[in-house]
């Protein structure tokens, strides 16, 4: 592999790793919700309305 190929491959793999980490972080922030479907959104929002 040429040096330029190594750099491109490394960049692709590192951005993929970042993609996985960011997705997991987003899920953690949302308390496990994917945040894309209405069931999840509703369930997530209800976390803020727990009886005190």
């Amino acid at each position, binding site marked *: 592999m040429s040096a330029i190929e190594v750099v491109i491959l490394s960049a*692709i793999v590192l951005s993929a790793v970042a*993609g996985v980490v960011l997705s997991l972080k987003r899920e953690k922030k949302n308390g*496990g919700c994917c945040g894309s479907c209405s*069931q999840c959104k509703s*369930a997530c929002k*209800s976390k803020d309305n727990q009886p005190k």
Partner: protein
Amino acid sequence: MLKFCLAGNPNSGKTTLFNALTGSTAHVGNWPGVTVDKREGVYKKLEEKVSIVDLPGIYSLSPYTLEEVVSRNFIMDENPDLIINIVDATKLERNLYLTTQLLETNVPMVIALNMMDTVERAGDKIDVKALEKAFGVPVVEISALRGKNINELMKVAYEVSKQPRKSFSVVEHSPLIGKAYAEVEKLCCEHDVDCACFHAVKVLEGDMLEVKDHPHIEEHVKEIREQIDSSAFDGDFEAMVADARYQYITSKMPSILIKNAKQKATATQKADKFFMHKVWGIPMFLVIMFAIFHVTFAEDFLYLQGIFGLEINSDFWCTFFQIEAGSAIPSPGVWLQSWFGYLMGCLIEAIAGLMESCPAWLTGLVCDGLLSGIDAILSFLPHILMLFLFLSILEDTGYMARVAFIMDRAFRKFGLSGKAFYPLLMCFGCGVPGVMATKTLESEKERKMTILISPFFSCGAKLPIWLAFAGVLFGGQHGDLVVYSIYLIGIIVAIISAIVLKLVINKAETAPFIMELPDYHLPQFKSTMLHLWDKLKHYLVKAGTIIASAIVVIWFLSNFGFAFWNGMVDDINVSMLGQIGQALQYLFYPMGWAMGDYGWQLVVSSLTGLLAKEEVVATMEVLAGGLGLEFMIATMTAPAAFSFMLFNLLCVPCMAMVGAVAGELNSKKELFKAIGFWMLVAYVVSAATYWCFTYWYVGVIVAVALVAAFVALVIRYKKRKV
């Protein structure tokens, strides 16, 4: 902007009206408790924009449940300009109980009389003028489902919101506590309590929050209470107030509701005699579920080949069904999946053709990695959507609410109530909202038990795993039975786990389960399509984000050695992932499947399932190389394949669900206990399946040991009880 809120009993049609007014696509279900949180939208067809707030369904404004707290806090603290009280006209008397409480607030109000079409069909009549006179607020007849009269409702609501409304309580008409109420209200006015009418009734009831908020008048209220003869109600003032409300409603009902004298049993009542039968209710549910699995996954539709020997041999039909000559007619789900798989294959081939001049590693990354992995999970999309279409129809018709009811009796024996069925039912779609929905369970122990067994209910993300195996096992002829059996085994393991957890941990009595059964109705096309769109969006978002990223990483690790700059390796076993996988492989040996030709690949695939369960199949496809995951599965024996499926069904769920469980359990110690529990169950069940079905005598020994362990647990439980 004006702010109107929708308040009413559960399953009275609030969310349907909310969607119709705001053009939203909020989840609507034909069972009570779909909305556990308030949500907002905007109505734009009036002179000024109106913010519409959909509150969760409630029976009262007493702060006992999460839904009641959310609704009460909104109405009392956030000063809405108007309340649209949705009243289910088919259950008028019960729905008006909440109306009497809403009238005690000084917020302007309109009653939206929903489901009037059903009342008219039954031959009943409701006198709207009499209803307006009895409750002192305008009434508009609507059909939220059909969007009938909703613009008229908003026009009336807009006019009403401009005028202040004086609160009043029907309790003042009570001969028993009317006088006491008047005295407490006077007391509240003297102490400058805002909305004295509402607070006076609540203080008189002994509402916990009100007593805490108004300690200065509590002594006087006690004296007033002592003057009332409450012996008939055992000193329960809440019951006395409830009785006063119902007395008022009952006294007005003859002039409001004119019942059809020749009323016959409704279609719902007739159907319930059949579907909710105490003997065949549960078997009927199992048969319905099998029928759904058969239509979705069967290679031999209606067993036409198995029973009648019907085969397809003509070229036209073979192309139409995408099958080989001499095959059976496939079920609609399999037929759609074949076409989808064919089109995806054409797309991948076209892209591969375009990349011929690219470097080998880039073609490999895009075609063998990214596209193959995503194809492996997307090709099952028609199956998944079809299964959820049927489940959504069952939910929309009102049948699933019945299943919760018939399951209550069975669940109770295992320490759970029918109320736990809803969260568990949601887990068939996705475990995350399922786990979050457990917060509606009042008993803490029941909630914990439900969370612990929830991953055993196979979610949509695990479906590609079952489908990949179903297409290969037993020659791919019994896909419906394979998938159905996995779902059933998951439920059985959950039940056994619940029994064990009940005997070991949960000694508390199960909370009683009271629910209002909705009427059956035909599924709504829009609502069903919205459910499917939700599922599709969820799937595509995951495939395009976490799964696609993980596939790239897996492909890189499985095609390069630790000195990756030297280029791609020829043998996958010497790749980075190969070396890591082979080191871990031994831990999974007892379960059988890790011992085969593709042992470490299967281990790595299972581990990537922690990111997202769809990832298991995508990783298998990438690690199978050019041979495809079907070849990988074909090298496994049936016990090893089932053992692998069960391990993936029962082991630690995806990170998203673990996050949800962590949030709900709110304790790291409890979370680690839960993870340990899932791993133990998965390991034991998976290993037992492999060894018992590979060597019959092991099966006999394990069966005897299980019976002995169960008897020992029962004896221990009985001794504790004594």
